[in-house]
C-alpha cells in the first residue's frame, strides 16, 4: 500500500514538476516578449536525453553524482506530506520530520558536488563552490523562519504545522517570517537574483557543465521533482497546506508563479553580493520576526 502511495507521489511530482518547468519556460519567454517552447517540451527533452549516449565519463563517482542527486530529491519528496488531513499521500513523513527534510534538501546538491568534482572541470567546481557558499547564506533566514514555526507549533512535524494554520495561514500571521523565507526560497528554486550558480544561459560553466545524455536527463528530472517537493514544503509551512489536489496545485502554482515572476524582474547578483544580501536583509527581518513571533 505504502509503496503504491510512494509511486503515485513520485509520478505526480514528476509530471507536475515538468509541467511547471514547461510553464516556467513559457512564462519567462512571455516576460521577454517572445514565445517559449511547448509546455511539454521539457518533458520530451528529458525522455530524449535518456535515450542519448553520454559522450564522456570520468569514472564511477562521476555517475554517482546525478544518481545521488536524484535519490536526494526523491527521498526529500517522500518525507513531505502532500496533505495535512488525509491518510494517503503522506509518503514517509510519519517517520521523519522537518529537521530530516531540511537536511535532505542539501543531500542532492552535495551528491552533485561530488560528481562534478570528480569531472575535473574547474568551472564546474567553481559553480559548486558558489552553490555551497550561497547555500549557507540562503539557509540562514530560512532556518530562522522554520525554527520560529517549530517553536510556535511546538512540533517539528510538517503535517501538524500545516494543519495548525486552518484559521490564519502563517504567511499572513507571521509576515516577518514569511518574507525572509520567501527570499530564501527564491534562491532555493534557483531563480534570479540568486541564480548565479546554475546560470542557465550566459556562463559556460556551472555544475552541469560535464554531464550529458542520460545523466543530464537525470539532472533535469530530479530538478523537476525537487522543485515540486520544495514548493509543497513551502506551501505546507506557510500557505496553510492543502487538503485536496486542486488546492495543492493552486497554491504551489501561485507560489511558483510568484517566484518566476520575481526572478524575471530582477537581475542577477554575483555570489558575494547575494550572500551579502541574504545575510543582511532577509536575515535581519527573520530575526525580528522570530523575536516578535516567540516573544512571550
Amino acid at each position, binding site marked *: 500500500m505504502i509503496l503504491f502511495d510512494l509511486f503515485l507521489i513520485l509520478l505526480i511530482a514528476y509530471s507536475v514538476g515538468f509541467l511547471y518547468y514547461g510553464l516556467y519556460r513559457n512564462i519567462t519567454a512571455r516576460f521577454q516578449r517572445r514565445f517559449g517552447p511547448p509546455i511539454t517540451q521539457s518533458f520530451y527533452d528529458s525522455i530524449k536525453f*535518456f*535515450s542519448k*549516449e*553520454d559522450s*564522456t565519463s*570520468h*569514472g564511477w*563517482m562521476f*555517475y554517482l553524482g546525478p*544518481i545521488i542527486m*536524484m535519490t536526494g530529491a526523491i*527521498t526529500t519528496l*517522500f*518525507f513531505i506530506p502532500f496533505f495535512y488531513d488525509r491518510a494517503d499521500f503522506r509518503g*514517509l513523513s510519519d*517517520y*521523519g*520530520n522537518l*529537521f*530530516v527534510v531540511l*537536511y535532505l534538501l*542539501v*543531500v542532492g546538491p*552535495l551528491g552533485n*558536488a*561530488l560528481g562534478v*568534482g*570528480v*569531472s*575535473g572541470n*574547474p*568551472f564546474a*567546481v567553481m559553480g559548486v*563552490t558558489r552553490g*555551497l*557558499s550561497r547555500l*549557507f547564506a540562503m*539557509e*540562514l533566514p530560512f*532556518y*530562522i523562519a522554520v*525554527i520560529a514555526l*517549530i*517553536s510556535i507549533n*511546538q*512540533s*517539528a512535524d510538517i503535517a501538524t504545522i500545516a494543519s495548525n494554520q486552518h484559521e490564519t495561514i502563517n504567511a499572513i500571521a507571521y509576515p516577518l517570517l514569511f518574507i525572509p523565507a520567501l527570499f530564501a526560497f527564491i534562491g532555493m528554486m534557483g531563480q534570479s537574483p540568486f541564480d548565479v550558480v546554475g546560470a542557465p544561459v550566459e556562463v*559556460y560553466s556551472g555544475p552541469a*557543465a*560535464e554531464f550529458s*545524455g*542520460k*545523466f543530464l536527463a*537525470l539532472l533535469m528530472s530530479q530538478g523537476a521533482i525537487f522543485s515540486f517537493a520544495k514548493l509543497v514544503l513551502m506551501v505546507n509551512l506557510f500557505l496553510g497546506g492543502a487538503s485536496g489536489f486542486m488546492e495543492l496545485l493552486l497554491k504551489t502554482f501561485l507560489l511558483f508563479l510568484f517566484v518566476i515572476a520575481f526572478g524575471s524582474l530582477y537581475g542577477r547578483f554575483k*555570489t*558575494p553580493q547575494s*550572500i*551579502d544580501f541574504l545575510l543582511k536583509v532577509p536575515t535581519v527581518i527573520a530575526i525580528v520576526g*522570530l523575536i516578535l513571533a*516567540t516573544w512571550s
Partner: protein
Amino acid sequence: MRIINTLLAFLSLALLLSFWQDNFSFYVDLALLGLHGVVVGVKTSALSNVFALLIGFSWLMVSIASFASKKNTHSTLFLWLPILSLALFLIVYTVDYLLFFVGWEVMSIVSYFILAPTLTPKALLKYILFAMASALALLMGIVILYSGAETLLYIDANHGFTLLSQQMKMILVLLMLFAFFVKIGAIGFHYWLVDSYAQADDLFTTYLSAVLSKMGIYGLIIFLTQVVDIYSLDWKILAYTIAIIGVTTSVIATFKAIKEDELKRLLAYSSIAQLGYIVTILAIAGGMGGVLYHALIHTLVKLLLFINIASIIALTNRSKLSQLGGLIYRTPHSFVLLLIGIIVLAGMPPLAGFASKYLVYTSLLDAKMLLILSAVMFASVSGFLYVYKLIYGIYLGHPTHKSLESVDEVSKWYLIPQYIIALLLVIIGAFPALIVPTLNTVLVQLHVAPIPFETSTILESPLGAYNGFVVMSAFAVIFVLVLFFVWRVKSKAKNVKNRFDIAYCGEEPTSATPLHYGYGMGQELQRVGFIAIIWKQSSASFYNALTLMLFSLSTRLRKVYTGNLASNFNWLIIFAIFLLCWGLE
C-alpha cells in the same frame, strides 16, 4: 613497542567492556598529608564508563593504524601513549578534584613530550603555556572550591559551592570555564590548538582531537552538573553565556576552516567547531543527551577523518589541499571512507551525524534558545563548504603532481580502523537510538531527564521523533532503484582516456593549466563583509600584545637588578624609611 601498546589498548578496552556493569571503587584518606578528612579515590560510574570507552576505543584505533608505517617511527609516541591513556582513565574515573588535577597535569605534560619532537618551538611553547594556564586556573578553582567544601570529592563540592560568596562563585566559575575552554579550544582560547594539531604526529593528532579535547567536555560536565548544579540553579545568565561562547566558537571556527589550505589545520578548526556545538547545549537542562551523543559521534568521526588524512599524508608526503587532488581512483577505499566521514561530520541524515545534530537542535528548541539555534544551524550548513573542500581537495579534481598519478591504495592498517568506525557510524545511523539506553544510564546518574526510548530505530525528542532506519532504507532503496534504472538505460559512454578532455571554454587545457581548484575554494567569500572580518581577526594579535607587554615589563623591572650597588643602597634606605613610617603608623 607498538605491539605492547596495542595489546595494552586492547586489554584496557576488553577490561572496560567486561566489567561494564560492575561497580568498583577505591578510596584513600589523605590525613597523612595533613589534609584531614580529605578522601580521594576512583570509582566507576556510567558517565566515566562512557568516556573511558571513548578513550579505550580511540587508543586501540590509533594503535592499529600505527602498524601501517614500516619503520617504528613513532617509538616515543607509543612509549608515552599508554601513560597518557592511563592519565586519561584517571581523569574520568576519579571522584575527587585532586586526582582529577593530577591526571590533568600528567595529560598536559605527557602530551607535551609527545608533541615536542615534531612541533616548532613557538607552537610548542604556545601549547604548553595554554596547558599550564589551564592547569593553574583549574588548580586555583579547585583550591577555592576546597576552601568552601573542605573536601575534594565531587559529591560534596556542590555543598561547598553554595557556601561560597557570590563573588567567589563567579570567580570560581570563570576559572573553571577558562581551564576547560582552553582544552576544548573555545574561540579566543584556541590559539594554541590549531598549530599543535597541525604539527603533531599525524596519529597523535587523531588522539588529540578524538580524546584529549573531550576531557575538557568531561571536566565541564562534572563541574556544571556536580559542582554548580546548573540545572537546578536559577542562574540563567551563565547558561546563556556558555551557549553564546559555544555558538560563537562554532561559527567562527567553521569559517576559519573554510579558508584553510592545510588538511590538519582544516580539521583542527572543524574540531573546534564541533566541540562548539557541544558547549552550546552543555548548560541547558535538556542538552546533556545531545552532549554525550555528539561527543561520541565526534570522537568516532574525527578518528576516521584524521586516520584517513594521516594515511594520505603518509602516502603522498603532502599535507596541503592545493598540492593534492585526483586520488579517487588511486585510493577508492580511502575515498569512500572519507565520504562517510564527511557525511557524518556534516550531519547528513542517513548516517549517525544527523542523530547527534538532531539532539542538539531539539534540545536548543526545547530550551527556547531560538536565535542560538539558528546560529548553530547556520554554522552547521556553512560547514558543508569545508567538508566538500576537504574531499574535493584530496580525492576529486586533478592531481597536482605527477607523483599523485602513480600511488597505490593506502596501507591496510590504516583502512581497518577506518572500516570499523565507518561501520559503527552506519549502524548508529540506521539505529540512532541504539546507544540511547546506555546514555540514559548516564543521564540518570547526572539527575537529568533521560532521552525517551522505545525502539532502537526511532530517536525521540520532545519535539518529534524520526526513524533512522526508514530514512536510511528509503535512501538506500531509492539509490539502488535509480542506479538500476540508469544501468538499464543504454549507454555507450567511454571512459575518458585523457583527463584534460573537459569542457573548458572551447580550449583544451594542458598539464600546465592549473585545473585543481583546491586552494581557491571558498576564497571569494572574502568579499562578504563579516566573513572577511572573521578571517582577518585573529587572537594572535591579542596574545602577541600580551607577550610584548609582559616582556617590556620584564625589561623595566630588570632595572631593579642593575647590579649597581651604589644605587641599590638608596633603595635600601628608602625601603627602610618606608618601613619605619609604616611601623610608626
